[in-house]
């Protein structure tokens, strides 16, 4: 091995909780691996599963989706409706043969900077162990 594989992970974070949690992790100088590229969305309910697939097709090795904890959604139930979508798409992706830990979902509140850094560390390690994601990554020319 020449160089250790550094996975690229796209993180979709809701504006009100998880993005703020990531911010707090930064402000608190909590360390976590630099593998994630954050996309801020208004609510986890805004996440179309196509976002996840688009990330994978454009070369993401992993995808992390995080929203407010159930009961804490800024829009009351956005994350609860999303939870059903997330569960079914996660199961379907695993079923077709995308390794389960490539695409992970979690809840992180605005006050959980520590949880956010732990989460990113854990997802990064998981994806690093899996190696590059090639199944849905589109090779152009």
């Amino acid at each position, binding site marked *: 091995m020449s160089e250790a594989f550094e996975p690229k992970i796209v993180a979709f974070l809701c504006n009100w909780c998880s993005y703020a949690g990531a911010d707090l992790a930064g402000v608190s100088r909590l360390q976590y691996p630099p593998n994630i590229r954050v996309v801020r969305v208004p609510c986890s309910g805004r996440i179309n599963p196509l976002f996840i*697939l688009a990330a994978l097709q454009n070369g993401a090795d992993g995808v992390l989706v995080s929203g407010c904890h159930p009961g804490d959604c800024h829009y009351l139930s956005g994350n609860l409706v999303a939870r059903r979508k997330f569960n079914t798409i996660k199961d379907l992706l695993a079923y*077709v043969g995308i390794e389960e830990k490539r695409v992970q979902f979690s*809840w992180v509140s605005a006050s959980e900077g520590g949880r956010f850094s732990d989460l990113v560390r854990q997802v990064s390690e998981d994806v690093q162990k899996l190696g590059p994601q090639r199944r849905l990554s589109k090779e152009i020319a």
Partner: protein
Amino acid sequence: MSAAIRDAIRAAARPLLAEGKVSLIVGYERGSNGYRCRPSFAARAGDIDRLEWDSTCSNNLAVFLPGLFQRPPQKKGQETPLPRIAFVAKACDLRSIVALVKELQAPRGNLVLIGVPCTGMVDERTVREAVGGAEVASFADDGKAVVVRTAAGAEHRFEREAVVQHACRCCQFPVPQGADVTVEGPARTPGDNGDGLVKDIEKLPPAERWARFSAEMSRCIRCYACRQACPTCYCKECFAEQNNPAWIGVGAEQTDVSIFHIVRIFHQAGRCVECDACLRACPMGIDLRTWTKKIAADVRALYGFTPDFDPTGKPPLVTFKEDDAQEFITEPGAQGHGG
């Protein structure tokens, strides 16, 4: 038997047209090859005699519902009235119709549903393969055996159950409920939903699951027959053809094809009645069932829902419960996280 049912369908249909209760009856008629039945549209009394019934009435007729109720943009106060239309409906057609009614594709009050109990439809592909690829010229089914004659004149006899569609063998709902008219006739014993197929696949390691999925999808030509044959795929503009943003490419490139099928199947969560219309429509013979079954099984397992005959209530993926399963959520630091 099928002749009696056919007559009962005609008898139910005739007054509906004659008395002006509906303007159109969607049913089945004899196809061009002398073998299978195909969709039929009866708008005049004379058309009623074309309506047929036998064990080749595989098409899910609910696929026509959204189009028949589609109107051009309406001016307030000058709306053209919606039509009143009757459907000959096996239980699977009826469940798709119910799913569409729930999604406001047609008001239930504008539909007259002629429910027909079902003993299972004969699988054209199985029969064709069993006779060596030759085309079937004629076909008879006495309820126990299916006798098929090829164009070349060879006769083949099959035990009926051996050539019944897989979807029908797993069918949990052979008897339609909630129809406006129900035709009398035999029905098969309810099946076991076929989730065993899903469990078998789940036992395989991811690489093997992927190998299976990608081998099957590599044959896709993106003709969209699966999508067009599916009653609950009625978007005016499918994500697969949107160009702003262009979610995926429009060709038969492997990742584009894979994502098309993954997302199309995902969009059927809580709506798919497992009729296999997609699979039968595929000109390449792709086995879509292995994956469509999963989404149905998953919604069953997670939310205890299978599309049924009840037009009330919300489809499972547009609603939630506070205590929905969330074992799939990653808990950082927890052992064996992420399911």
